């Protein structure tokens, strides 16, 4: 296997494994937000706002993995 093949494989593994945690995390945030919304439908505005904020914080970790994968494919050309 050439080095380029290894790089592609590494990019795939980086993004794949790196998306497990944030996927679960975003799901948990959604669970908390839906629970809170069910208990208190009047607070919909602020629940939605803070849910979006928390989802973006959790998703940032997946974005770090994406950046590593992109770097592996596009920047490290030899």
């Amino acid at each position, binding site marked *: 296997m050439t080095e380029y093949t290894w790089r592609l494989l590494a990019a795939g593994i980086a993004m794949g494994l790196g998306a497990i945690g944030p996927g679960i995390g975003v799901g948990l945030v959604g669970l908390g937000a839906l629970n809170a919304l069910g208990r208190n439908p009047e607070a919909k505005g602020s629940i939605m*706002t803070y849910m979006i*904020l928390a989802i*973006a*914080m959790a998703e940032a970790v997946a974005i770090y993995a994406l950046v590593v994968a992109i770097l592996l494919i596009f920047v490290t050309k030899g």
Partner: protein
Amino acid sequence: MAEQKPGKKIGCGLLGCAIPLATFIILLVVIIPTSIFGIISGAFGKKFIPAPTVELPASVVFHLGPLPVTNTILTSWITVVVLILIALLVTRRSKLIPGRLQGAVEAIIEWMYNFCKDVAGPENGRRFFPFVTTIFLFVLLNALMNLIPGFGSITFTNAEGTFPLLRGANTDINTALAIAILAFVFIEFWGFKNNKFGYLKKFFNFSRGLKGWGQLFTGKLGKGLGNIFMGAIDTFVGFLEFFSEIIRIVSFTFRLFGNMTGGEILILILFFLLGFAGFGFIQIGYLFEVLVGVVQALIFSGLTLVFATMAAEKHEGEHTEGTK
């Protein structure tokens, strides 16, 4: 708009017939170009449309003295000009009952102001509002610029090859880094301004440890050891907080850069791999990118606001709240 003809329905709301206008805009900007381009760039068009290449470092267009000007800098200049134009148009002749553009801008600004006041309290909200809204509008317009149809198609050719003349500014890591550093300076400024040098006590908290050593020497052995232990934990936690403040710059940068670059690559892949066969998917992907742009702008400004609020908290119980 002084008098309506009798029998005509009075107005269509604040934005003036919003739903037909929005439908027209969405049709014009999203569906028609994406369909046309989907047909062209699929299997039919491989001959006359070159496959896209993604250059991560932005390509330099010209040099302004010693400084290189890249295509992302050109886009951010266009964004600044658009923002200044909108601001001038809206405030030049502001009416008490606003017209459409002024109404829309007022709605956005008022929503952002309420958001700042909700998160930061009434007085801090007023202080943080200008900078936070600037970040929001700048990042939002940069993200939307990247999605204008035909944006990256104007190319220029220099020694290394053919590059797009304009590229979304958020896909450049330098833009994200610049805004992140500005936000960091903003947060630290408000931390120091509200607490003077006591702000550093949050990070370098030696008081309990030193008290423990003092107690050790005056004979209270048990309490002394306990306070030394707690002092060590305080130092460690303080160091961790200091480190996480610095790392915030990195996390802001990569969150914005990764979302925007990933979005650009996603759009390229959607168009060039799916072609017209993915008719629904291309439009869904495009609208998803618009949503990601809005959300990322909101996240950046919202997180700056939250961290500035946390940094600007005065020490509890020290003195009564000042008049300002």
